[in-house]
């Protein structure tokens, strides 16, 4: 099994006729994803790569019954697209769009509390479950089915690590990019809870970075997980931000730097990799046990 997506995922692509939407739809179809429809207001009734296009998510839901959606709509309209997906009852929403205002995201997250939908992203590469389905923009040819879960805030760095795992013949159950924005839907903690329950995941690689305290918030759960988690945190060389104002410092209370994160994971006894190669070494140690 995988988490979040699998061979039963029926995907809707919001913004399917745009540049990135159409390019990535092609890639997802090549991967084997079951793309059942797309939306672009005003282009309803047409087809792209054989996939039917609708004017609205509601119409798509009525016609082709998607259970997941991926969003490639430009930032000025992406939050509206997320609301549209939520209101149409789509359960899994993956928003690739970069550049959505953070105030919009706060409103969306508050609204989602009274719904059962789950949001991944925005500003994320999406989810890949090798051999089953891909919802997002990860390169097609780097994955290998297996038992390692990956959850990351990065894009290409995640690809680099997936690629390295694959080259070392270490397969993945599911790889998730949760996105690098300050306010996102799914968190490290949420993803880890799903991996913990997934019987096909043996160990998890967590790729964190500076900013926020999402990594630290997951530590309590990791300590009680039955599965090992290996953390790799980047940004140790980032300069101290010239941020004005004290509010951010008061909220984070000294946490949020790469150094403080690494310290916190170290204190909790969670294995840390200092570079991608160390991830492979750590996993091999675990898998040998």
């Amino acid at each position: 099994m995988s988490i979040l997506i699998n061979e039963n995922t029926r995907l809707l692509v919001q913004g399917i006729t745009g540049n990135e939407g159409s390019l990535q739809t092609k890639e997802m179809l090549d991967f084997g994803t079951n793309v059942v429809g797309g939306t672009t207001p005003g282009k309803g009734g047409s087809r792209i790569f054989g996939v039917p296009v609708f004017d609205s998510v509601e119409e798509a839901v009525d016609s082709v019954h998607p259970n997941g959606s991926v969003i490639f709509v430009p930032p000025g309209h992406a939050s509206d697209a997320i609301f549209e997906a939520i209101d149409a009852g789509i359960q899994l929403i993956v928003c690739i769009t970069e550049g959505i205002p953070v105030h919009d995201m706060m409103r969306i997250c508050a609204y989602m509390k009274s719904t059962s939908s789950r949001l991944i992203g925005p500003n994320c590469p999406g989810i890949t479950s090798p051999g089953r389905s891909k919802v997002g923009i990860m390169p097609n040819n780097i994955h290998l089915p297996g038992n390692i879960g990956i959850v990351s805030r990065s894009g290409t760095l995640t690809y680099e690590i997936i690629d390295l795992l694959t080259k070392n013949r270490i397969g993945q159950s599911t790889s998730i990019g949760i996105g690098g924005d300050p306010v996102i839907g799914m968190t490290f903690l949420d993803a880890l809870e799903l991996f913990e329950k997934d019987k096909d995941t043996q160990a998890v690689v967590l790729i964190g970075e500076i900013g926020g305290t999402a990594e630290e918030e997951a530590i309590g759960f990791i300590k009680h997980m039955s599965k090992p988690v290996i953390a790799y945190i980047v940004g140790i060389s980032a300069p101290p931000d010239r941020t004005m104002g004290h509010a951010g410092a008061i909220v984070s209370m000294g946490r949020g730097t790469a150094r403080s994160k690494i310290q916190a994971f170290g204190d909790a006894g969670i294995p840390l990799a200092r570079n991608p190669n160390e991830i492979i070494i750590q996993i091999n140690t675990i898998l040998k046990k």
Partner: protein
Amino acid sequence: MKLYEYAGKEIFSRYGISVPKGSTASSIEEAGKIAGAMGKSVIKAQVLAGGRGKTGGVLFSNNEEEARQAASRILGLTIKGLSVKKVLIEEFKETHAQIYLGITIDRLVRCPVIIASIAGGIDIEETAVNSPEKIIRINIDPLTGLHDYQARKLAISLKINDTKKIIDVIKKLYRIFVDNDCILAEINPLAQTDDGIYALDAKMVIDDNALFRHNYRDEDPDPLSEMAKKNGMSYVGLDGDIGCIVNGAGLAMATLDMIKQRGGESANFMDVRAGANEEQIKTALRIVSSNKKVKGIVVNIFGGLTKCDDVARGIIDILPDMKVPLVVRFAGTNEELGHSMLEKYGVTLAGSTEEAAKAVIRLVNPH
């Protein structure tokens, strides 16, 4: 985007938060005239960095002559790498109490958080660590907005009179925070004076992602960052001598980390984002190499939709203009083709991020 103090105070004023009378000056002459007409005044460096007080960026004056002296000292300062080009001259206010009031985003709870403390002033962060009971935080539901009962709770917790006026300022600051897509709106100190409650400082940071729906103009842009931004890329200058060009912020940070772990120092952070094609890579190389400190450049590309051979073509094209050695590492789509294209041009090729870091350090520090 950060706003200067005077720009923030203009917004405060428009929303009805009282600020001291004042205006800005770019010359000693001008500053002297403005302050001379005021009597006791305060002269403040206008610079987008904190800690001005501790670096001599805030001085007081009683007359035109003192003001000229103060302005001449401040206009010569460089604070945290930023040179001071403007001062704000304001009427001096005697304060009875200094409150800290700030609104930012609580990423964890995914909502605005209002922070208040009676221990306002420059040591507020220490107060937060040493006397957390003096700091009160309230999370705001972004859909319902700030409730009166929350503003009241904050104001009452400060335990000074003027509760009604403080409630009013809190409500106005929250309006400002929301209306302007702020990620920070801060008043430190919010001062209790003989004639009311005044915002003696103003710090506002606007969400860059929301600039499209506002009318802010960056008054003091960094030319390299601006050029990168215009081309859909992200550039931050650093103090080292190794130029870096990477696609993806995470991979870029990982590359910088690797360079640091191996004893090198990066000259910049650069994420070329989705723009890792032929033309974009040329622009990126131009931007990074225009920093005179750069002694070598590492290009680290993980190809997905980006094709490594396209990137190679861009590099080959601009190579004649490059004065410093290049290390290139390709992975993903057409990595081998890309590497093979570069072989005959004397570019150093690396098989991994780690190798690339090692190689560029060797080139930059040959001893």
